[in-house]
């Protein structure tokens, strides 16, 4: 895949420089470019929320830094964890006196570095709590759910946690709703084409013109199974069956739904998928509380999509409906 880039080694810093030039009223950085925070950080008296992870997933991760969502984000290189140092810089800059919650995907490098950062932050007397996102049903069976990776479902966690913190809740309450929404959130994805890490210069995998990868993540990695490319309705049904079997929503339940494009798949195709999702849920007498159709967690120019279902009660519905405003996500 051809890219509009300069020196591949400058991909992330130049992207960050552009981002800060585009949104000076909303974003700032702490110590170094790779530690992005709300321009008005710290928000005194509010529980602060931090995330972090590799680049190449916009709007994930830093795209959700803003009012009603996150306070800061440690930015790694493409598909690589940021360092404990960067996470600590973010933590120190956003701490508003009520503690910091780390919400991020369950990836080895990130976990190790966030754990190191938390140890260091605690030496500064900053209370740090961690909620790992593990929404991808394709990455491990239910009995090993702790091994699952975090994908697009993390956006619902950011949304609920951000709303709760903005409402003035304490750290226990913020952690509680974050864990609650994640306990009700499941995702599955499909990839049609790979992506190329700028410095690697070649695609993450090769795939035939008539094939797809079922159950891939958001790092250009191959999925769990390679199969013949199917129709939108068949693919959607496949993914829905896996998610529904895991989440087990009942007739009468309300779900927030996200149909997320991985990068190259156009919104038109996402709406064709959403149509089938809606039909399947209607048939089961499950209603859609809110629909998010678009690019929320990507893998650069990868073609493919993921579906996330999130069961909501009144509390979670209120948190999802709460206003938010970031450079990538605005909700009234």
């Amino acid at each position, binding site marked *: 895949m051809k890219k509009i880039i300069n020196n591949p080694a400058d991909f992330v810093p130049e992207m960050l420089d552009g981002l800060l030039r585009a949104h000076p009223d909303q974003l700032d950085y702490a110590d170094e470019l790779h530690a992005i925070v709300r321009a008005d950080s710290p928000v005194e008296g509010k529980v602060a929320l931090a995330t972090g992870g590799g680049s190449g997933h916009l709007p994930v991760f830093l795209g959700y830094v803003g009012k009603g969502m996150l306070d800061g984000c440690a930015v790694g290189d493409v598909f690589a964890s940021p360092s404990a140092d960067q996470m600590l810089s973010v933590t120190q800059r956003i701490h508003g006196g009520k503690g910091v919650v780390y919400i991020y995907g369950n990836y*080895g490098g990130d976990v190790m570095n966030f754990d190191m950062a938390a140890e260091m932050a605690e030496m500064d007397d900053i209370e740090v709590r961690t909620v790992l996102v593990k929404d991808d049903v394709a990455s491990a069976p239910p009995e090993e759910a702790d091994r699952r990776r975090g994908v697009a479902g993390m956006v619902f966690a950011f949304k609920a946690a951000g709303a709760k913190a903005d409402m003035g809740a304490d750290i226990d309450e913020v952690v509680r709703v974050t864990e609650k929404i994640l306990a009700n959130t499941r995702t599955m994805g499909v990839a049609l084409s790979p992506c190329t890490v700028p410095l690697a210069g070649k695609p993450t995998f090769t795939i035939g013109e008539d094939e797809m990868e079922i159950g891939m993540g958001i790092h250009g990695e191959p999925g769990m199974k390679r199969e013949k490319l199917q129709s939108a309705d068949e693919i959607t049904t496949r993914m829905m069956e896996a998610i529904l079997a895991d989440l087990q929503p009942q007739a009468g339940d309300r779900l927030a739904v996200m149909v997320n494009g991985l990068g190259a798949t156009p919104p038109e195709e996402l709406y064709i998928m959403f149509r089938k999702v809606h039909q399947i849920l209607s048939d089961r007498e499950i209603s859609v509380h809110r629909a998010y159709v678009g690019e929320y967690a990507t893998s650069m120019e990868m073609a493919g999509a993921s579906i996330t279902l999130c069961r909501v009660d009144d509390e979670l519905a209120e948190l999802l409906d709460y206003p938010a405003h970031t450079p990538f996500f605005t909700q009234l």
Partner: protein
Amino acid sequence: MRNTISGEAVAGALRRGCTTLSEQVDYLTSLDQALGDGDMGITMGKIAAALLDYVDATPVEDIGQWLAKAGMTANRAGPSTMGTLTATALMRAGKAVKGKNELTADDLVAMFNAADQGMQDRGKAKPGDKTIIDAIHPAAQAFEAAIAAGVSPQEAGAKALAAAEEGRDSVTPLRSKIGRASWVGERTEGKLDPGCAMFVLVLEAVVGG
């Protein structure tokens, strides 16, 4: 002549390991693409470059502190899974010989074990999960046994290398049980673990010098 290892020798060993890493970037990338996300070669290349700069710029006095600072440098340069494990190994190895200006064979044993244990603490992988632990852990044990049996560090290194290779090959048929590769599922069976492969290459360079 006393049978000790100087700070310069330690620096030389680190330099050889990093030079090898720099040369193997594409190979490691291709291994990680086959069952991970393809970033390992790049990350380790960055770490190698940063450490080579560090070795050039930083004279060794206290070997322990020097190694710990190398670990912090590595974490900043490439904080991926393997980068962070490498950083942890360097920091722990340094901690094991804090304050020393030269090392005995027993110091080397302590460092090797500390690196092994540090990686296990940080990453929480167990032997058999098909990770770098399956190469470093048998290597550290073989090294300790060989030194205990009275052979030279040089010879003990060769034994450690053989154990690492054996460990690496023993997990190739298995399915990866932790980290990104674990999500690729059955397709990891029969494929070389990138972390093991890297460890063997680095160890070979370190002991071969």
